[in-house]
């Protein structure tokens, strides 16, 4: 998917972010202080930086000013409005305050990547190929008919692959926030997807939780 550069000095949080991003298929680079971040950035091409503000050596704002041009999401424990405004006026793409939920981080990462990544987005798994631009699904290079909701659900599963999503979360993400339907609807759509796309082994039911697309 994308190469994401994590700059965060708190090891537990750094590790947590890295593991979650890797689970959904991103490649991760790591730096634990400001200077290191600038060195690594100079050597490698990255799609997005997750930048902590309070860093040893150089703080996040300074690092950001030196790395101008790369899409950036600030991660910080500072929640004051002035800090947020400063971060966003500097030109950051988003600003996330600790503590945050992983799904929120992933959603924001996705949103920024969708905005900034130039090449067309597609996803391949086994004999399945999904073209997100054209909203088309191919199985063994043959187009498969999907309803819009089925496609939305598939897209949510793919972007959050390897992460278990509860039925409520799936409704929230694939349907609208105010969808008042039964969570049974999710089960029905999942069954259809499994059958149509031959994904019985890929879309797993997680006991008492929901579903997970395992890759």
């Amino acid at each position, binding site marked *: 998917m994308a190469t994401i550069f994590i700059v965060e*000095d*708190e090891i*537990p*949080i750094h*590790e*947590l972010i890295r*593991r*979650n991003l890797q*689970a959904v298929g991103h490649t991760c680079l790591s730096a634990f*202080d400001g200077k290191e971040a600038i060195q690594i950035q100079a050597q490698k091409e990255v799609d997005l930086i997750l930048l902590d503000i*309070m*860093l*040893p*050596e150089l*703080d996040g704002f300074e690092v950001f000013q030196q790395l101008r041009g790369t899409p950036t999401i600030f991660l910080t*424990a*500072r929640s004051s409005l002035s800090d947020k405004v400063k971060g966003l006026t500097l030109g950051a793409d988003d600003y996330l305050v*600790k*503590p*945050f*939920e*992983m799904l929120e981080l992933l959603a924001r990462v996705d949103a920024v990547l969708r905005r900034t990544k130039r090449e067309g987005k597609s996803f391949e798994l086994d004999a399945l190929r999904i073209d997100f631009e054209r909203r088309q699904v191919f199985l063994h290079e043959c187009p498969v008919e999907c309803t819009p909701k089925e496609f939305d659900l598939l897209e949510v599963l793919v972007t959050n692959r*390897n*992460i*278990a*999503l509860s039925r409520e979360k799936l409704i929230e993400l694939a349907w609208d926030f105010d969808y008042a339907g039964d969570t049974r609807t999710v089960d029905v759509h999942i069954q259809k997807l499994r059958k149509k796309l031959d994904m019985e082994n890929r879309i797993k039911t*997680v006991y008492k*939780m929901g579903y*997970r697309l*395992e890759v």
Partner: protein
Amino acid sequence: MKSRTFLLTLTLFLLFFYSGILLASVVTLKSNLDSSKDRSLREHYFIASSYAKDLNALEKRGESAESGVVSLYRSYFDFYSKQKVILTIAKDGRSIANDFMEESHAFPLSPVISKKAERLVSMEKVENKEYISVAGNLPAPYDMYTLVYYYDVSAIISAWSQMTVTLFGMGMLFSALLAICLMLVLNRVFKPLQQIRTASKNIAQGQYGNRIEVKGHDELAEMAESFNHMAEEIQSQIQQLATAAQQKQQFVDNLAHELRTPLTAIYGYAEYIQKVVRTEEDKLFATNFIMSESRRLQNIAYRLLDMATLRENKLELSSVGMDELLREVEQSLSMKAAEQNISITYEYCFDRLECDADLLHSLLVNLIDNAMKACGQDGVIRVVASLENGYKVISVQDNGRGMGEDHLAHITEAFYRVDASRSRSGGGAGLGLALCQQIAVNHGAQLSFSSEVGRGTTAKLTFTSC
């Protein structure tokens, strides 16, 4: 107050001033008139006797008394009218021999005087002129004739009234001058009060730097001085409050940060286990982090609790042997020191110390632990207990990385970290030195630090109370 003082002073002054003028002029007038009366009486007596004498002489020469009176009157009248004196003569209350004097018609008829020697003195007003009139009979045997003597005093009275007018006019002028001077003087006197008013208003509005200019050594200057003193006290106290509030805010901010980071990690790893983890290895990895981060929260909670208890409880001091104290400190640190190959030397030149053994032990362990973090592998730490200026001093010196002046002032604040990123690579909750400071305060001791970047840090505990 100012205008009241002004009006009161002015009114009182004018009251006394004009009463004085009035009294003086009345007294002058009265004494002038009295002397005129005396003179008139004397003249009347003199004229009456000479009139009688002349009349007697005329009678002896054979002239009748009737015609004699008239002819004599004529010459007397002519003579005295040049001296502002008018004479009338009457017989038994009937005016005689004054037909030729036109003006004498205006004069009232002379009173009939029954007793021989009696003379009447009165003030008469005739044709807008004031006269003193003295009426009396001629001496016997001519006592049927009454001679009235009029003395013109209008000049005296007009002079008096002119003088009075002049005095009052001058009085007005002086009053105006006085009012102006009084105003100036009062302004000068009340100026410090005005200044105090302005200054206190400014202070009330939050401009605590306001001061009054102090001039002279009078009561007002003293008041201004004490006002300035008050302003200074207020300023310093407000400053202290502001600093304390700032420190509190800093503490709360830091605490929030300290809590937020482990909470983020704990929540995140729990979520990770729930939604992502598929292997036992991943689960172990995540649970390890959850446990270590929970431990961190626990540490913070315990340290905060320790500080709270320390603040509230009174110490029980006892005499503790230095050898014992340092031996225990050495025991609890020797493992860790050996691990990092740090050498710690202990020296002491006094034997006993009044303190709470447990608290002082934890203080020293904390300080030495910090020193060990600062010097890392192969460091050298000296713990020295000595006497300085009669005070017992315990110092902990290391040869570690040291820190700058700006940090030294803050290191005893809770959660303060020399590293701006607040990283905990060195470990700890960030409350160690805050706790040490609290223990030192409870012992009545001073905890001070000196440091040089790259050369090391010295922590010094001075027992000023014992």
